[in-house]
């Protein structure tokens, strides 16, 4: 996994609550046995007018000229609900997103993002609202600083605004160091073996 420390990028605002992983990557694109090839199908049903994905929907946020090259997705509550498919964060990452900001995330999606090095940031409702107010009019660029757990931008008055966020200690460590989580746990084999040795026989 790549290390994540700081990131600076353009924000694309997706002003819809309860965006589920079926919307992020519909089922017909889950038939791959590889980990690549999902980005072009991200948000397929909203992003394209036709079933085969040749006609971009001009009304969809990611198709608008102002948001080309966006690497930070601003979303509403309960983002990533539904199916556990890791294909959803894979698709977001392959499209070019490095950071997803929302007031709340579904649990499985949140964990899946961390596990692939895509940073999910929870901010307070009022902060999210403020970003939504700014993003449609201005080209909102955010600075994301994981080691200091803050998001910052310069407002219209030229003033620096900062929002703080937090991750659990180990999740933050994992992202900042890009650790191989399986390898890390395999370093604990003695502990696992000791646990197994005292399990009841029926288990």
């Amino acid at each position: 996994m790549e290390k994540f420390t700081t990131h600076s990028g353009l924000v694309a605002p997706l002003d819809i609550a309860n965006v589920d992983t079926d919307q992020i990557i519909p089922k017909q694109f889950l038939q791959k046995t590889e980990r690549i090839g999902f980005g072009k199908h991200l948000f397929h049903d909203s992003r394209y007018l036709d079933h085969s994905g040749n006609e971009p929907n001009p009304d969809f946020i990611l198709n608008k000229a102002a948001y080309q090259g966006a690497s930070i997705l601003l979303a509403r509550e309960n983002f990533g609900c539904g199916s556990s498919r890791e294909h959803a964060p894979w698709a977001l990452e392959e499209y070019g997103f490095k950071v997803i900001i929302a007031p709340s995330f579904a649990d499985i999606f949140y964990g899946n993002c961390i596990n692939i090095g895509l940073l999910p940031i929870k901010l307070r409702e009022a902060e999210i609202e403020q970003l939504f107010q700014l993003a449609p009019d201005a080209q909102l660029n955010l600075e994301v600083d994981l080691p200091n757990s803050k998001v910052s931008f310069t407002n219209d008055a030229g003033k620096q605004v900062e929002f703080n966020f937090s991750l659990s200690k180990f999740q933050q460590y994992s992202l900042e160091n890009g650790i191989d989580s399986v390898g890390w746990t395999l370093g604990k084999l003695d502990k696992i073996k000791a646990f197994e040795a005292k399990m009841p026989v029926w288990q």
Partner: protein
Amino acid sequence: MTTTAKTMYEKLWQNHLVEDLADETPLLFVDRHLIHEVTSPQAFANLRFHNRPVRHPERTIATMDHNISTRSIKIDAAGEGAANQLRALEKNCKDFGIELFGMGHKNQGIAHVMGPELGLTLPGTIIVCGDSHTATHGAFGSLAFGIGTSEVEHVFATQTLRQNKAKTMKIEVKGQVGKGISAKDIILAIIGKTGSAGATGYVVEYCGEAIEALSMEERMTVCNMSIEFGAKAGLVAPDQTTFDYVQGKEYAPKGDVFEQAVNDWQQLKSDENAVFDAVLTLEAKDIKAQVTWGTTPGQVTSIDSKVPSPSDFSDPVEQESCKQALEYMDLTAGTKITDISVNKVFIGSCTNSRIEDLRAAANVVQSYTDKGQSVQSSVDAIIVPGSYRVKAQAESEGLDKIFSDAGFEWRLPGCSMCLGMNDDVLTAGDRCASTSNRNFEGRQGRGSRTHLVSPEMAAAAAITGHFVDLNT
């Protein structure tokens, strides 16, 4: 020294804690891992890349369910992409020594139907699967939850997972439900009350007289939809109903070991004074038959009511969600639920495809058949049993004949139209009464509209062409 009263979740957590360091996410042992063709191939690929074995292949069981045809047991019947994944699963299971219930195997079925009916699902265990409806197994008092593919790989290699501790929520359903109210109505009513993210960050324990009165299959229906209001997992305390169900199942412990297990399982229930982070109480008698009208499972109402209007909600985000949902669902606020017509019916999925579900649906169908009524000519209705065992049982009881004679299509087991990864897909504009678990936009096919209901309601809708209050 004081002893602290514990919830069932805390006991399950403690019993599986391999390591709990201040600087690391706690490490939990995983007893049972269910896998299928869609969310496992990339995990196997990474094992190969790192040259790592599966630590306990005997603790993993594979089935083919998501991608398969419900018309043919041929591996190629659901298209090239599906066949590639199914063949990859065969090869991966062979290479890594994992037992697989492949196409047409007597044990094949939807993972969450198969596990319980084979006795692979046991109280007091941690069960994971790369599928969000793994919560189903919580009906046994096992901590069961869906995981992503990176976690599937982690479980393969280490038989453990890292998990932050969730908060606990108690949902008590007091008293007895009215006649004809199903487990599906109970869970939809709960979600209607909490909203689609009401339990995010929580493990939910369902309790109360109405829950205790449920059969194991009904408890599975309730726990299955825990994820639909954001819960990490759903739990029901194991009791005699649970032990009787597990006893004698193919993979369940036998003899003295079973007795010892029951002893341990009896200790799992939440202590009397255990404190939950949140408590929700419902009166069972208030629960009516439920129908979703929107595009999240929380957008649900009673059969005797009307489609709501955005102005019925105070929260601006909910207002906007209602507006968008009505537009997508092509519904007008104020329409009576019983006036909504459907042209497709799907009875199946890990929520409602077990033998009791099929019996309940067949009963309704029979009551109409007795009056000379059958499936409306404008409706296509399919019945997809959850497993080959369910299919065989249903056929031995003649249920398939009741359905076929009334004009339903009797299909082969699989996930089918719940997510439409195979060819059981709705087309744009279709309106479906579905016993599945998600009514998301496009879930059953781009532009299609899903109403989540019980098997009884779905059966009646197939025959009358619209939703019916069966209890009036």
